[in-house]
């Protein structure tokens, strides 16, 4: 009897653990190497940089925080951002002897269920005046109310779920275009550039994947002829591939992250499906290319991130500091940090003042002009298409 009960208890623990793991994990990821390519903008002459005018003054101990994945799932994206944040803070501190800002790194693990603790710790640290983050949509939704209640300004460099700006949060600012911009742009590219009228939309079970798939499906209209679903952490896709083979589409759009996308695209190619594969910013990571081995070649990856290879001062400094070229959303993270540092330099000494500064901010960054609507959406939201060529992700064009 005891054995049986123990087995039942074990099954229960297993089921709960599985459900929890299923809730985990949202975001987007990426990277590019190589020299300047067609379609990559160069640094705007009027771009505001972290160093500012060197006249910044602030109280000792003044801090900003990065909250996001550093070592959790899809960590490559978080590292690309936190490195850029660190670079901006270092450049600022070197140029402003009277204002030394500390960077607090809070690792959220990238999932809604692990984000609450680290974010609460940041909220309870009175020296933190502003946040760069959170990178992923699911975790952003989970901690948004607490950040809003604390009046702590947060600029996300990569969370793209459109619903995030519809919660009435007055402290949420998005440093890039959301999926209501990216989704239709992807659909246009698929229909007009790839000329595909029969598209399979495969999505994962994250907030990000579901939200983006809905945008793309809506924009595709009748061309979205098949819908398939995968689960976070799934690695074996034969049933989904069967569904795709049955539908025989002219293009496959995968709405999710690179961790699932790389085995999926490899297994698709192994099964003889050579249909064009399109992924979003969550797949645009060097990890996708490495893990799919040759199967990623030719894949198209959209992203509301701006190609960075033209920002040579930034890319050189990043490469010098971290030994690798900047990756997806590095420049967006750098820009977001610059804005917070500007506010501190200009005398914002508490959270309310910094929040007001960001709200009324209007300035040029590396990636775009930053000026927000009352809900925290940008007015300028470029989306680019990238392409996997051999072992590299290269810029295709603005879409």
């Amino acid at each position: 009897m005891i054995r049986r009960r123990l087995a039942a208890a074990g099954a229960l623990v297993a089921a709960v653990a599985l459900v929890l793991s299923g809730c985990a994990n949202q975001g987007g990821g990426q990277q590019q190497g190589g020299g300047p390519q067609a379609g990559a903008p160069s640094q705007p002459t009027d771009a505001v940089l972290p160093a500012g005018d060197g006249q910044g003054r602030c109280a000792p101990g003044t801090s900003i925080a990065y909250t996001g994945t550093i070592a959790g799932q899809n960590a490559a994206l978080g590292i690309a951002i936190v490195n850029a944040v660190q670079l901006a803070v270092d450049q600022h501190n070197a140029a402003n002897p009277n204002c030394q800002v500390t960077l607090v790194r809070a690792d959220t693990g990238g999932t809604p269920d692990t984000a609450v603790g680290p974010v609460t710790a940041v909220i309870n640290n009175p020296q933190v005046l502003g946040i760069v983050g959170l990178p992923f949509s699911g975790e952003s939704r989970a901690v948004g109310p607490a950040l809003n209640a604390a009046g702590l300004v947060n600029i996300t460099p990569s969370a793209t779920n459109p619903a995030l700006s519809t919660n009435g949060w007055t402290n949420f600012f998005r440093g890039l275009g959301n999926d209501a911009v990216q989704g239709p742009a992807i659909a246009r590219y698929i229909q007009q550039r790839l000329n595909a009228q029969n598209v399979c939309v495969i999505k994962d079970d994250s907030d990000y994947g579901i939200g983006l798939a809905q945008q793309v499906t809506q924009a595709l209209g009748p061309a979205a002829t098949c819908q398939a679903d995968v689960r976070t952490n799934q690695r074996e896709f034969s049933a989904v591939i069967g569904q795709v083979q049955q539908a025989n589409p002219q293009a496959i759009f995968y709405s999710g992250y690179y961790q699932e996308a790389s085995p999926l695209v490899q297994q698709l190619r192994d099964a003889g499906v050579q249909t064009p594969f399109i992924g979003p910013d969550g797949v645009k990571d060097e990890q996708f290319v490495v893990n799919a081995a040759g199967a990623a070649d030719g894949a198209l990856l959209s992203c509301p991130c701006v190609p960075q290879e033209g920002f040579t001062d930034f890319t050189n400094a990043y490469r010098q500091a971290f030994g690798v070229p900047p990756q997806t959303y590095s420049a967006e993270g750098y820009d977001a940090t610059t804005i917070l540092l500007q506010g501190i330099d200009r005398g914002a000494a508490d959270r309310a003042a910094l929040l007001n500064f960001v709200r009324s901010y209007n300035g040029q960054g590396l990636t775009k002009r930053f000026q927000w609507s009352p809900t925290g959406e940008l007015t300028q939201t470029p989306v680019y298409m990238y392409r996997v060529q051999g072992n590299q992700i290269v810029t295709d064009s603005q879409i």
Partner: protein
Amino acid sequence: MAASTEPWINFDVGLLIDRFWANTVNGLAYGSIYALVALGYTLVYGVLQLINFAHSEIFILGVFGVYLTFLALGFEPGAIPDLPLGFIIVDLVLAGLVGMAVSGFAAVLLERTAYRPLRRRNAPRLAFLITAIGASFVLQQVIRIWRGSNPEGTIRLLPPSPVFTIFGAPVTNLQIIIFLASLAMFFVADTFVNRSRLGRGIRAVAQDPNTATLMGVNRERVITITFLVGGVLAGVAGLFYLMTIPQGAVYNGGFLLGIKAFTAAVLGGIGNLRGALLGGLILGVAENYGQSLFGGDWRDIVAFVLLVVVLMFRPTGILGESLARSRA
């Protein structure tokens, strides 16, 4: 939430029928990996009545053992090497042996450091269970600190290629190797437990530890051997898993597969070797049928609903529990 055009659940009988044979073939191949891991759960449960939740990490350590052997043999992530078949087979066997050694050693070490001290102190069963879960997390994080949180770069020695078809469903070389080798490993394990002298000791301890000790069976030794056998089988599973999913070498990669394998063990009747094999194969194909019928987001749900339904009618699993009573 899902797009308005999409139903919350599908009922695509046409797809299920069209894909029946392909789903069966793929399910049997992947299910045999479940089965090999499930054997480890079932062996330990049979002897100690302990659900060794850390077994998923024993498995992933085996995967890393295989992967690091590939690296040590000079393979690099990315390109698919164009080697003569003989070399590939030797390399795979070598990597498999290392994986078996790593997993087997890790399982015995885990038993010595985590479970044996508890047994010495006559700890309650709950303490074992919680220790198992804790050990699982510890091992996972140790791997993460050691190898980082990104999956290891893909190294694939043997790309799948179709050999023949069954009712239109292609069967790849990889699937044939994995299915047959898993069956062979199962028969070795089954024969070992049911026919050998050590196996008789395992069954004796499973049936009645005290009497077995009185009859001269060295209980501690039997427990060590049980963990060793379970670990070695997990190492083999690690090789097959990495051959099927080259992206599989990541610190938390054992978690989901471990839960599925545990489900398979309970499904077939935990404590019963044949049950683990049957449960693994059934789970593999049922997941695929369920995905075609209900949609891909129902994959995990299908597995657990199946478990619940089977346990309602057969509370001890399909073949019943108990290693001791599973004699041929």
